[in-house]
């Protein structure tokens, strides 16, 4: 394969990743391969053509808006971080496992901002979990040693906020939850 042919393939891969991101989808190697063939870019022969992963690495190096994400399944997924941010992509990836989805989002928020997050956040897009699913996930976490850092605090209105004790002490989480739930509504 000539350098020009490689470049054409990389461009096709980049376009396919962006197209998927624009529709809110992460894309894996297999689908990318199918896309290449469907779009008639070339008859991609895995035996004769360069390694797909090397092609993808070259594509990402050439297009800085593109990124790879290791899925919770271990698979490598691709997205355009301009059209589908890392945060949003991670949420989409974890949607198949409410337990991981909730735990990782709670941990990230506790570590990064830092803040606890209202439990009803998970009922809304893009999480779209039912109350029953959230409750089941929290029960599951309570019984697993892997998720013992996930805790909650209740505000003066009875609202529940989740946080990770790895990153937030309980009194601070309670303070931030109260501020979010009532403090800012009373302090315009």
């Amino acid at each position, binding site marked *: 394969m000539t350098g020009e042919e490689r470049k054409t393939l990389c461009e096709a891969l980049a376009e396919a990743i962006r197209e998927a991101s624009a529709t809110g989808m992460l894309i894996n190697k297999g689908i990318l391969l199918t896309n290449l063939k469907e779009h008639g870019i070339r008859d991609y022969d895995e035996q004769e053509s360069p390694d797909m992963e090397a092609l993808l690495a070259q594509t990402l190096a050439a297009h800085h808006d593109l990124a790879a994400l290791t899925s919770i399944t271990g698979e490598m997924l691709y997205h355009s971080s301009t059209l589908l941010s890392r945060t949003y992509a991670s949420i989409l990836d974890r949607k198949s496992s409410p337990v991981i989805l909730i735990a990782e989002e709670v941990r990230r928020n506790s570590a990064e901002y830092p803040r606890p997050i209202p439990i009803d956040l998970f009922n809304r897009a893009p999480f779209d979990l039912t109350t029953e699913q959230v409750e089941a996930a929290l029960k599951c976490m309570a019984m697993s040693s892997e998720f013992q850092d996930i805790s909650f605090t209740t505000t003066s209105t009875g609202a529940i906020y989740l946080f990770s004790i790895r990153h937030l002490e309980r009194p601070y989480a309670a303070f*931030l939850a109260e*501020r979010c739930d009532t403090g800012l509504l009373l302090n*315009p």
Partner: protein
Amino acid sequence: MATRIGGFAGRVLRVDLSTGKISFDDTVERYREVLGGTGIGYKVIWEEVPAGTAPFDAANKIVFATGALAGTGVPCNGRTAVTTLFPSCWPRPLVASGHMGGQFAAKLKYAGYDALIVEGKSDKPVWLFIRDGRVEIRDARHLWGTGIRRTTLEISQEMGQDSVVAAIGQAGENLVPLSVVMNSVSHSAGGVGAVMGAKNLKAIGVQGGGSVRIAGDKSEWERLVKFHLSILGSNNQHVVPSFPDPHSEYYNPTSRWVGAPGRSWGAADPPVEINGGLYDLNRIAFRANNGVFYLGEQAWKHTVRGNGCTGCPIRCHTILKVPSVAAKYGIQDIAQNTCAGLLFGRSFFKCLPGGLKSQTALEACMVGMHMADDLGVWCNYGQLQRDLMKLYYDGTIKAKIGSKEYTSYSWDKYESGDPLFLFEIIPRIAMRQGELAHSLGLGSGYLLDHWSIPEEVWTQDLACAYWKLGHPKHHANEDDGQCGVIINTQYNRDSQCHSHVNFIRNGLPLAVQKKLAAEIWGSPDSVDGVGDYTPMNIHKARRARWSLVRKELHDSLGLCNWMGPWVASPIKERGYSGDDSLESRFYSLATGLQTSREELDLIGERIFVLHRALTIRDMSEMDMRNHHDLAPDWIYQDPNGAQVFTRGSIRMDPQDIAKAMDMFYELMGWEKATGAPTADTYARLGLQSVAQALAAKKLLPGGKP
């Protein structure tokens, strides 16, 4: 030279209501060194209103002033500062300003004026007719006694559709210190309505057929406007959405960027669905919905649209339509306002059935807006409602007013959160009916005096949120530790400063905020996490100084300090930075006067220090540190007994705050012992004559200018 300068309309209109004389000043010639807005306001009060003047004296003046950027295409430019001696400032009236948005600022500029100075006192109710060069003092006896809405309607009908009317309601007429002037239906300046009332000035109607000339390169101007739009967030410059979005790396449930695809303005006819990209510059107006932010998701179906000021795409005033209130309370089913104005009714109640985002809360807001925005009652940034709450629940009201008056109120409705209670309390405040309503309308300080309650009872109560001089905190240590405290010590009413809190609440992760802080204020340590405060450092003092200077700059340029400064942005590619030189770039292009960020900040500092000098003169006191720059006791307490600098506590340390004031004074060039600007500082700012006047009154450190 003066005629070539852009931005400014060019003239300041002066109306003497005692003599009927109408005159004009050249803005650039006389006021250029203080820009406009509060700058002109402070200068007029300094030069023309003698110390010891009372707010309702004919000798007091009220200055409606906008700035060089008002009425242009700059986003968020619709502000008018209304400066006067404040009747709610206790124990003595001092200079302060109310700030209104709406369309008044632009119309005043289009009529040819940067400011309007009203002096004297009419012997009968009048209103001001301003149509370009034609200015008349007109009879307002037929309007006296009517509310803001009717006054606005009648004057609008008389002047024509393209007029704007700023009017007072019955509260202002009755000299209630807690009263507003309001334009464009919902845009009010608090605390100044009664000063207009004392002058028998019911309203100001303005119509202008002119425009604002931009002196600089037009394409560069257009590029800068587009750039500014690109770095806008939502209301209060919250730069991330409140929900995860594909185009955003960050989100924050406390963000006022609530507009999301799939939501709709349900009460519009037909309903308007929010669609398309959140970052599309033509969709910025979809981001803010303060009805939803404060009242929850239910408010979407009641939203007609957002409303706002000239040139501002944020539209922070939410127009709500709630049909149930027409049948239930006999009021209009439509109302609009933002923040404290939107929450006027809800804020009266300690408890509401269903909570802060319930249907009852929504109805309380509708009733509150219906009444307060017509009668022209000011809430003193929520202190009015907190005063009533404290006085009622600690039994003071029952002890202080007669039983006949006490039983005339439905306290059961008050306790149960029934909006019907608002029909009993708000009109009486506006009409000064009865001991309770009269006292509440005085403002906290004079109320406490009137009822012989020591101020300490208020300053020790965290829930009361009272700060000093009859006014509450406004984004103090609960939002921004020592920086918030310093800012709250500086003014003669609540500080109204948002430069600091717009950054703190912008929604970005702390690490990103610290990165930006290092770029702007020289150290990541200039910013703490909320409720995770560290001991004072010089960088925080620098940020406090910057915040205050930028506030005065915005107030004097016609820009909105509820939105700016714009030092953070939603743009990932910029590392979420905004632009710290936006104001000076716009000012340079508009006026044609090439002015650097540092040079414009110097003018902002001049304006701020003029306010300081006025306060020193009118208090006849140089020791600001011990007599003015005070903080309430509650900031040194924690309801749970937590120690200072404990995560989750906003408790401050007295020694640390003393250190904070030392650092701040030193940065400002003010004497540490007194907090009074030194002669060198006045000289550095071109205020030598001010220093001389203060020296003559023995109010200058060192005694000689």
